[in-house]
């Protein structure tokens, strides 16, 4: 039975579930490292998925769909940025409002464009890159031939360097930890916080794009809480790109296990608990104290 469960198909499934978590979670890292709490990830994913679907549907070109998905995420994040950074409103409330707004607007436009309250018409998937050496295993080839999977792996690793080794990352972290200190050395707190939130918009929009292509359509409310799970993973990963990605992989694994075990004769309620039990055990047992950036969620007032 064990070998049945942990098959290549299982691995493929785990990765499939992990990718959108990882992209959104990484987005959360950028936003919160810069000092803006971003629970709007959920709504950004949803809008990203919808924009990607519409873009692909009308152009027939999945690459344009990807760009639309990113643009949808960016625009949604822009709202969050203006409200949080310029208007200095409560960032949690802004996030909740955006999440509710995303549910409403996607449903509304879905009705207009596709005359359905539940799902869009079918769209094509992303073209695959041929990777000769794994062609013999179709599950794996399909996955790693997917440019978004490759991009996700790349961006996770790159982010670890971007955040901790580059000028941009240093300034972003400074702005999130002590904006006043950053201000006194001539760094524009507003600008860097915008960068953080907008990058999170692009990445979470891409997470939504993945969902749409994975399913070949948009369905109402398809983000299904992934933005919140991504935030939890970001915290478990202590606001580090690699940590957040590892946490996402763990969640993806647990969820995949849950799906796999559904046919195994165990009580379903018990099986559905698995991802959450894993989360709690990891949080309580292995992670230790997770310290958020000191100015996370606090608007910066220039003249005190």
């Amino acid at each position, binding site marked *: 039975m064990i070998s049945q469960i942990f098959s290549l198909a299982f691995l493929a499934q785990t990765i499939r579930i992990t990718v959108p978590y990882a992209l959104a979670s990484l987005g959360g890292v950028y936003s919160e490292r810069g000092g803006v709490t971003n629970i709007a990830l959920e709504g950004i994913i949803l809008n990203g998925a919808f924009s990607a679907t519409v873009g692909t549907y009308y152009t027939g070109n999945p690459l344009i769909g990807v760009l639309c998905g990113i643009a949808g995420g960016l625009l949604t994040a822009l709202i969050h940025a203006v409200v949080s950074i310029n208007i200095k409103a409560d960032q949690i409330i802004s996030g909740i409002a955006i999440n509710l707004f995303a549910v409403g607007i996607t449903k509304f436009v879905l009705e207009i464009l596709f005359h359905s309250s539940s799902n869009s018409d079918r769209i094509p998937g992303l073209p695959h890159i041929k990777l000769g050496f794994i062609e013999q295993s179709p599950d794996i080839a399909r996955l790693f031939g997917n440019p978004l999977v490759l991009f996700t792996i790349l961006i996770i690793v790159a982010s670890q*360097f971007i955040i901790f*080794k*580059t*000028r941009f990352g*240093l*300034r972003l*972290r*400074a702005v999130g*930890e*002590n904006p*006043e*200190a*950053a*201000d*006194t*050395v*001539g*760094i*524009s707190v507003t600008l860097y916080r915008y960068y953080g939130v907008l990058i999170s918009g692009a990445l979470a929009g891409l997470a939504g794009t993945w969902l749409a292509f994975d399913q070949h359509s948009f369905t109402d409310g398809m983000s299904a809480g992934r933005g919140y799970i991504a935030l939890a993973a970001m915290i478990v990963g202590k606001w580090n790109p690699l940590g957040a990605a590892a946490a996402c992989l763990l969640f993806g694994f647990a969820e995949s296990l849950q799906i796999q075990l559904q046919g195994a004769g165990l009580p379903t309620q018990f099986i559905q608990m698995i991802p959450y039990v894993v989360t709690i055990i990891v949080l309580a047992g292995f992670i230790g104290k997770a310290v958020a950036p*000191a100015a996370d969620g606090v608007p910066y007032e*220039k*003249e005190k």
Partner: protein
Amino acid sequence: MPYAIELLNITKRFARTVANDDVTLKVLAGSIHALVGENGAGKTTLMETLYGLYQPDAGAIRIHEKEVTIKSPHDSIKLGIGMVHQHFMLVPPLTVLENIVLGAETTKNFFIDLKKTTAEISELAEKFSLNVPLTEKVENVGVGIQQRVEILKAIYRKADILVLDEPTAVLTPQETVQLFKILAELKEQGKTIVLITHKLNEVMAISDHVSVMRKGKIVGHLETPKTNPQEIAQLMVGRPVLLRVEKSEHKAGAPVLGVKELTYVDRRGVEALKSVSLDVASGEILGIAGVEGNGQSQLVECITGLIRPTSGSITINGVEIVGLNAREVFARGLAHVPEDRIKRGLVIDLSIKENLILSLQALPQFSSRLSMKRAEITSNAELLIQKYDVRPPDPNAITRGLSGGNQQKVIIARELSRNAEVIIASQPTRGVDIGGIEFIHRTLVTARDSGKAILLVSADLNEILSLSDRIAVMYSGRIVKIFPDNKVEESELGLYMTGSNQELIREAK
């Protein structure tokens, strides 16, 4: 000689206060210019306006004889202005190196060029003897090091005008001497320095000119060699100030506070207190002199019940208090003026009247079973505000908006109103102006004369020498010497404080 800085008719208003009222200040290039004035006089505001953190409501700024507009620190940094702020502007989880280069990073293929940067900073550090651990996180280094990091930050940006806002407030006497050597060297290289300080001996020691501010206005520009501390003090406060404490001979009574063989090993296993014994009698002030970080903080925290000693005993009137928590210790007759007023002494976002009853809030005087007695709390505040001259005299003012000196007065007022038998005062006048110091010193002496037992901990030798009836010196977790009176030379105290008097110390063991 040309002027490096000209602040012309600067006015800066905040919601309720005029912090700078038509202020004109000119600083000669290549000179050290001291800026002094009472707490809340507007010194910091003036310099932060120069630095671009505030926009003046009126007035003009000229740098090196050219009119400039400074919209943000970005502009001032470009003009060669560097500032060391009164409250450190460091990012605690970043390393010392990251803090120094922040905003002025050198990069190589996208990455911060650690090799080149490290070499550059090491060279600067060497040149000015500003040793700092570059790879350590700022949150793990002491305030003395943080101060050096701030100075390095300014020098690294090639600042040619350097503003230092009370840089010596947290420095030990040795570190201050070191800093002044650096400033002299910078001046030698033609840099212009503005130094804000409350310590007039520092003004006399290092500055070429001194400007005095009072209540938002400049009240005098003086040439340092042609003036004296007395004159500066009088200008600052608007009346003659006693620069030394007047006090009668002390009449010590029976010992009240007794500390016996107190040992404290901290979480990292460092023995911070090594068998410390002392007692304080009613009607006396025992001063504890010592370079900061030699166990004074731990001693105070043990006595006040904030940490639990590893072994030893502490008694008030013969009753053991080790093992009691802070509230129980207070109930046994102890008052505590903590060294960190923001962290331990006040809840900074509460009003003055609320801070004045902190730790007293449960007394029947201020609370009935279900609610607080608002009228009593307000009248208590009004009384104390008047008695201790807290400004603004508004019980509802939020303490965050008060100047440092006035925040300190709120704490002193609360702790003395507690009417405790033992008063522990840690750095009671740090960052406080000379008018405030005079007042706090007088208050402590009055408390002594009324029979309180006072333990004074201070890094300021002047304060120790002028207030104490007896002086204990702490070094490396030990009391290395107790002088039976205050007739000691500063230099002799210094020897014990730095552990240079090794034989004597061994003798004391």
